[in-house]
Every structure is written in structure tokens, then in C-alpha cells.
């Protein structure tokens, strides 16, 4: 690093003309110079000083312009630095430090046996490579169609195109050729997320986001090349694309994921697209008659400050009284509307229930304190679940929810195993007509077609017990269970005034997992458990006494001991779950290798987890029932089914024909 002293002679030389050559100096100096020589000299000296500083600054930049920056030199952060890490991201170096700091951990390496076990038996996933958001789900001419963000070249995100698959029953799929690739300037950098709309004549339009050759996010229109092809193999992009570009005030990279359109009372089609303005998450509204030209409304569908970018916005009606799905265009007094958004900052999907005003395309939440995107607002799922999208299934009158379930392991493992990500099992979504304050989700009925042998159990489990449930192979299971805490145990706790009210402090995430024993919990199942319990994944209820002496119930999945591996993320997930007067505690668990989906109280609280056991795999994966409460005895009544695989097929004429026959 050169010192400014060494440079002074040079700058002085450069400045010589100002000193020695009177004709080049400031004309004022000539007239004023003789009258105030001291001032002039002072000004020039200051000038030299500043020039010296400036040149020194450039020189220090030059001096340090080298690739051999000493990384090791400064390990400590200065007092001035602070990390603005808003939100919680699952993969963090902090969690890993805790694990790799343990010198007693055996050095761990993934082998192909462990990795190949991780592939699921009955969840949607492509044969290989990376997948993310669900796109344009729809039912047409007897087939359920599923499209998805896909990287044909790697097991990490990139080079995104639209994958495509069809099924008769949302469970048994045949992969089809890619539906859309990045072959136009307006989607050259990515064929991103979009949604389908059915027109009155039964035809289909698809709106999707393209990342242009200049990486601007625009909306494009596409439609099936041949509506007589039930497989909708080929798609045509509208020659006039893009149909929407970022409007004034919206940045070119904050404009993506158009929704399914709904009919307004004025007879137009209306869509909404998520975005942000500074840190306020918003949803823009556009009206159209032909999906080619649009009119942007001055009003936003909704906005919530401090929530960041809204991705994958979804907007749809739910019946207040009937347990069925509604077409996206339905409106009326018996209907509430759901606004859902995926929060880019936190990777969490949030929704809120509210009222839609068709006259100006706005929506307000029933409860603004849990408005969309606020950390305490409702979620479809309290685990790993993002970029979700619903569609109206006109075949069976249901609204169905798809969600992208990413991996919680290292990218090394994904590369080694050759794939990354799953879709959650499709779920029906309805308003909870009993509470009116939340949605209820449940795996589609068709999942039951995979049930093979079943075993029924009824048992009483005392405090501190672990019971092995012998069901044979335990990597693909469907469990439905009902629990009751024995009356004596409940009365004792409720009657004991000195028993601490812990419900206000308890959370699945922060209360230490299933090894922490309370008076009335935790109790539930431990899945993908090794017989030694060295690896296990408990799914459980934790019942706690509240300040008002009422009981509060939590439903958690604890993946903290799910695996010996030190490069996977192992949180405790979950949330409180509403339990109404007279209801027993019920849970359903779908276990499918590296995914565990837990549904509490009929789907009022749902939690999806990714787990990567190293020992509790193949024949060594077992199922346990446990009660880790200190005092309470519980009764459990449950069914466990072995689940068949869905045998998702790569594309072939034969496979399509075979599925057509079912």
C-alpha cells in the first residue's frame, strides 16, 4: 500500500503548471493574486492536500487489487457490523456448527443405499433432477394435469422449463414430454410459474411468467395446440407475447406468478399478480376480456407492510357452509375469499380469510392482526411447504392444493442422488365450518387406493412408555389415530392450581422437542425409528394448561433426532391446533421414505417434514407409539396401513394406455 507521501512529488509535479505558469491559472488569481497572495497560497495548498488524498485513495485500491486477499486475517466482526438476516432460513451455518463441533461424531458419508432409499413411493416427483413450484394444475377430458418448474440439467435450481404429467386419480402419474421450454426471447431466461383458466367454451388459457433475454419478468399467454388431445401434449405460445410487462412503479424483477382468472360481475376476467413496493408485499389486479390485452386496476387486491415480495399469490372462494370446493369465479353471501401468498423472505406460505369486493377488486381480511404474511398469520403447513397453488377440480367438485416440498439436505447429497424436491400429497381445502377461522386440508381420498394390509390397535399407554408397533415394513405408511387423555390425569392437572400454566410459553419450535416431558404430553407416534431409537421422528400432541385453566393443544413433528447425518436440517415443526368441546385428539400421518406429512385434528394443523435417516431405513425402519408425559395416561385407538407405491411411469404410449384403462 503506497503512502500518500511517496505520491506527493508526482502530484506536486502535476500541479506545477498552476504554480509556475501564471497564464494557465485562474484569471481571478491574476487580478486578486497580487492583492491577496496569502489566501491564494492557502487555497492552493488545500487543493494539493485534497488531490494527494484522492490519488492516495486510488493507489490503495490499486494496491489491494489482488486475488490473494487474506481471508484468514480478520475473523472478528467490527462493532459497526450487524447482520440483517430477516426471517428464518432453514439451512444455516449456525445449525451446522453445532453439529460439526461435536468431535465425537463419526465422520459421515452418504452411500448409495441410504440415498436411493430416500426416493418416495407415492409422492409426485420426476425421474431425476430438480423440481420446484407446481404450475397450472387442471382437470381436462378425464385427466388430471400437473405441470411443474423443472431443471432438465441438474439437481439444483436453474434452466427452468415446464415439466408435465397426467393422472386419472392424482396418485398414479405418467410423465409426459416437457410442455414448454425457454425458446422465445420473452422466456429465454426461464419459463416460470403460471396458472390455468377455463373459458366458458371449455377451452384453456395458461398465463405464466417468462424471464426475458434481459431478465425482465413478464407475463405470457399460452394455450393447448390441440384441444382434442386429452393429454394436452403440445402448447402454443401467443404470438403477441408478452401480454403484461412490469407496470410503472414495479421493478422488473418483482412481477411474477399470475393466478387463475375469475369472472367479475361486469363480465370480465380478472387476475392478480404478487409483487412488492419497498418492503410492502402487494397483489396487483388486472382485468381482461381476451387474455391478450389487460387493464390494470388502480387499486391493489391487498397489501401488507413489512412482508417483502409476494410470490405465487393464490385467490379463491370458499363456502361458509358447505364442505366442498368452489369454482374460482363463484361469489355471493355464502362465500368467503382466501388470499394466499408465498413470502420470499421467509419461505413460508401464509393465507388469510376475508371479504372480496368485486366492484373495485379489493379484499380485506377478517382479522387484520393475522393478515397475510405477518409471522403469526395462518399457514397451510407448519413445516417444509412453499409455492403452493390450488385449482378447482370440476370433476369431483373439490378445491385441491399442491405444494412444493424442497429438500432439507445438502446440495452434495442432491447431486449424488441425482434429484431434488417433491410435491406434497394433493390435499382438498375447505373452510373449517366449525371454527370459521381456518382452512381444513386433507389428503385426497384417492390416496386410500394405495392402502394394502391394515392393522387395528387399541391401547392404553402409561407415562414414559415407548411401544413398538409391529406393522412389518414401515417406510410407506398411512396412520389414522385417535387419542384421549384419561380423565383422572386431566382432572388432576386442571384441579391443581399450582401446576404452571405453560401454554403461553410453549411452541413446537422452541420448547425442546419430544424429549421434554410435560404433565399432559408429548404423546404420539415415532416414525422412521430405529429399534434402538437412535434415529426417530416423533409426531405428537403436546397438551398444556393455559392461564385461564383451559387446555391448549399443540401438534408437532420433531426431526431433531431423525438422522445421524450432520449436513441435514432437523427442526422441530408444528403449531397449536384448535380442539373443540367434545372432540378427541386425532392425527393422520403419511410416511413415505424421506417425507412425513402429519395432519392434526382432521387437517386443522398440517406439518410436512423431510427426514434423512441413515440407519432407520429399509427393514430397520420401525414404528413406535409413545407417551412421554410425566403423569398422564393416554388411550390410543388407531389403524396403520401399509401403502403401495404409485409406480409413476416415464412417458410411453403403453404407460398412457395402461393408465387410461383404470
Amino acid at each position, binding site marked *: 500500500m503506497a503512502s500518500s507521501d511517496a505520491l506527493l512529488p508526482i502530484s506536486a509535479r502535476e500541479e506545477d503548471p498552476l504554480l509556475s505558469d501564471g497564464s494557465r491559472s485562474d484569471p481571478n488569481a491574476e487580478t486578486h493574486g497580487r492583492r491577496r497572495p496569502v489566501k491564494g497560497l492557502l*487555497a492552493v495548498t488545500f487543493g494539493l492536500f485534497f488531490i494527494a488524498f484522492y490519488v492516495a485513495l486510488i493507489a490503495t485500491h490499486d494496491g489491494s487489487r489482488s486475488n490473494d486477499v487474506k481471508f484468514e486475517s480478520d475473523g472478528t466482526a467490527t462493532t459497526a457490523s450487524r447482520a*440483517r438476516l430477516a426471517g428464518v432460513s432453514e439451512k444455516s*451455518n449456525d445449525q451446522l456448527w453445532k453439529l460439526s463441533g461435536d468431535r465425537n461424531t463419526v465422520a459421515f458419508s452418504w452411500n448409495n443405499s441410504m440415498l436411493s432409499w430416500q426416493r418416495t413411493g407415492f409422492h409426485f416427483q420426476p425421474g431425476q433432477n430438480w423440481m420446484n413450484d407446481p404450475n397450472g394444475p387442471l382437470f381436462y377430458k378425464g385427466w388430471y394435469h400437473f405441470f411443474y418448474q423443472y431443471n432438465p440439467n441438474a439437481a439444483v435450481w436453474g434452466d427452468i422449463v415446464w415439466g408435465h404429467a397426467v393422472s386419472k386419480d392424482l396418485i398414479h402419474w405418467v410423465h409426459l414430454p416437457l410442455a414448454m421450454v425457454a425458446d422465445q426471447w420473452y422466456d429465454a431466461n426461464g419459463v416460470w410459474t403460471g396458472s390455468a383458466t377455463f373459458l366458458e367454451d371449455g377451452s384453456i388459457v395458461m398465463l405464466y411468467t417468462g424471464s426475458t433475454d434481459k*431478465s425482465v419478468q413478464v407475463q405470457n399467454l399460452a394455450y393447448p395446440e390441440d384441444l382434442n388431445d386429452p393429454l394436452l401434449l403440445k402448447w402454443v405460445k401467443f404470438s403477441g407475447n408478452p401480454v403484461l410487462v412490469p407496470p410503472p412503479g414495479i421493478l422488473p424483477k418483482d412481477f411474477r406468478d399470475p393466478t387463475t382468472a375469475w369472472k367479475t360481475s361486469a363480465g370480465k376476467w380478472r387476475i392478480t399478480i404478487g409483487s412488492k413496493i419497498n418492503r410492502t408485499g402487494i397483489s396487483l389486479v388486472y382485468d381482461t376480456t381476451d387474455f391478450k390485452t389487460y387493464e390494470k386496476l388502480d387499486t391493489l387486491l391487498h397489501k401488507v407492510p413489512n412482508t417483502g415480495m409476494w410470490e405465487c399469490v393464490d385467490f379463491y372462494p370458499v363456502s361458509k357452509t358447505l364442505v366442498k370446493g368452489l369454482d374460482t369465479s363463484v361469489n355471493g353471501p355464502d362465500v368467503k375469499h382466501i388470499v394466499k401468498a408465498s413470502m420470499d423472505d421467509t419461505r413460508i406460505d401464509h393465507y388469510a380469510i376475508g371479504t372480496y369486493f368485486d366492484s373495485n377488486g379489493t379484499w380485506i381480511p377478517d382479522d387484520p392482526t393475522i393478515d397475510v404474511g405477518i409471522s403469526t398469520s395462518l399457514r397451510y403447513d407448519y413445516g417444509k411447504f412453499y409455492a403452493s397453488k390450488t385449482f378447482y377440480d370440476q370433476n369431483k367438485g373439490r378445491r385441491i392444493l399442491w405444494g412444493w416440498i424442497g429438500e432439507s439436505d445438502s*446440495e*452434495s447429497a442432491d*447431486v449424488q442422488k441425482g434429484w431434488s424436491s417433491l410435491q406434497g400429497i394433493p390435499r382438498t381445502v375447505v373452510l373449517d365450518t366449525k371454527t370459521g377461522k381456518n382452512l381444513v386440508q386433507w389428503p385426497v381420498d384417492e390416496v386410500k387406493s394405495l392402502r394394502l394390509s391394515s392393522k387395528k390397535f387399541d391401547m392404553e399407554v402409561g407415562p414414559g412408555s415407548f411401544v413398538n408397533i409391529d406393522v412389518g415394513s414401515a417406510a410407506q405408511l398411512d396412520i389414522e389415530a385417535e387419542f384421549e387423555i384419561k380423565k383422572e390425569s386431566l382432572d388432576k392437572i386442571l384441579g391443581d392450581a399450582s401446576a404452571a400454566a405453560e401454554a403461553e410459553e410453549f411452541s413446537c419450535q422452541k420448547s425442546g422437542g419430544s424429549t421434554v416431558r410435560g404433565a399432559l404430553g408429548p404423546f404420539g407416534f415415532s416414525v422412521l425409528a430405529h429399534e434402538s431409537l437412535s434415529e426417530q421422528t416423533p409426531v405428537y400432541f403436546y397438551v398444556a394448561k393455559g392461564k385461564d385453566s383451559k387446555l391448549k393443544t399443540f401438534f408437532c413433528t420433531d426431526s431433531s433426532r431423525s438422522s445421524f447425518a450432520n449436513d441435514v436440517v432437523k427442526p422441530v415443526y408444528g403449531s397449536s391446533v384448535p380442539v373443540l368441546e367434545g372432540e378427541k385428539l386425532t392425527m393422520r400421518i403419511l410416511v413415505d421414505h424421506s417425507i412425513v406429512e402429519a395432519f392434526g385434528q382432521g387437517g386443522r394443523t398440517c406439518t410436512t417434514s423431510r427426514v434423512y435417516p441413515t440407519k432407520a431405513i429399509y427393514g430397520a425402519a420401525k414404528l413406535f407409539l409413545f407417551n412421554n408425559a410425566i403423569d398422564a395416561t393416554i388411550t390410543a385407538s388407531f389403524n396403520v396401513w401399509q401403502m403401495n407405491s404409485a409406480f409413476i411411469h416415464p412417458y410411453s404410449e403403453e404407460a398412457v394406455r395402461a393408465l387410461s384403462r383404470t
Partner: protein
Amino acid sequence: MKMVVVMMIMMVMAMVSEASMIEQTCKETPDFNLCVSLLDSDPRGSSADTSGLALILVDKIKGLATKTLKEINTLYKKRPELKQALDECSRRYNTILKADVPEAIEAISKGVPKFGEDGVIDAGVEAAVCEGDFKGKSPLTSLTKSMQKVSNVARAIVRMLL
């Protein structure tokens, strides 16, 4: 006289504005000094926006991964008894080069920074796992620790793009 004053003002402004973007950005990361030295050392640093600064750090991750892989290769001969751990480190660092870095570059350039965050976080994870595989007797400690530090700084900057 006026010219000198104008020159002085321009120079002060240039000095102030040149340092400010990098310094402002680095203040929001867990390691201000490391952040500044990484960004200053790159000719693009002085005129880059946040996206550009993030990409510079991804480049540093790439360079560090390449350097570490070279070191791993020399260690095979010097410390043959460490082969198993070196194999695992090789796999991990190849992931950084071939998966994490391209993913981060594409995501940051295209405005879907969350996938860039995944990539840079993973670079730190892979380095930590590699380090852990030596069970306390790692010959790569300074390199793996650097990767984790750079990963933390990179992540903080990528988060600013969300």
C-alpha cells in the same frame, strides 16, 4: 481560485461516494472487514449495485473452492492416510463449484435471489462438513473456515435482494 474550490468539492464527493456503497452494504453483514476487503479487491466492486456485489462474492466463493480443491489434490500425496476424508471433501467442494456457484449466479442475475441464498448457504455447509470429516485434525481448517465466513457474508448480501 474558484476552480480549485470546485476541484476540492468534486474530489471530496468522489471520495465519499466511492467508499459508501461497499461500506453501507458491508455494515449489514456479519463480517464488515472481510466484506470490504473482498469487494474492494475486485475492480467491479466500486461501481456495482447490490446484485453486482453479491455476484462478486459468489465469484470469491468459486475462487476459494478452486483453490481448496487444488490443496486437496496435493494432500492426497502428502497425507495419504487422510484419503477417505479427502474424498468426501473433494465431493463437497466439487458441489460448490458445479452446483452452488452456477445456481447462485443464475438466481441472482435473474432476480430470484432465494435460490442464490440456497447456493451460498450450501457452500458454507459443504465446507463445514468437509472440515468435520477430519475429526479435529484437519489440514484444511483455514480454507474451510474462510469458506464459511465468505458464505455468511455472501448470504447477508443476497438477503438484501429479497
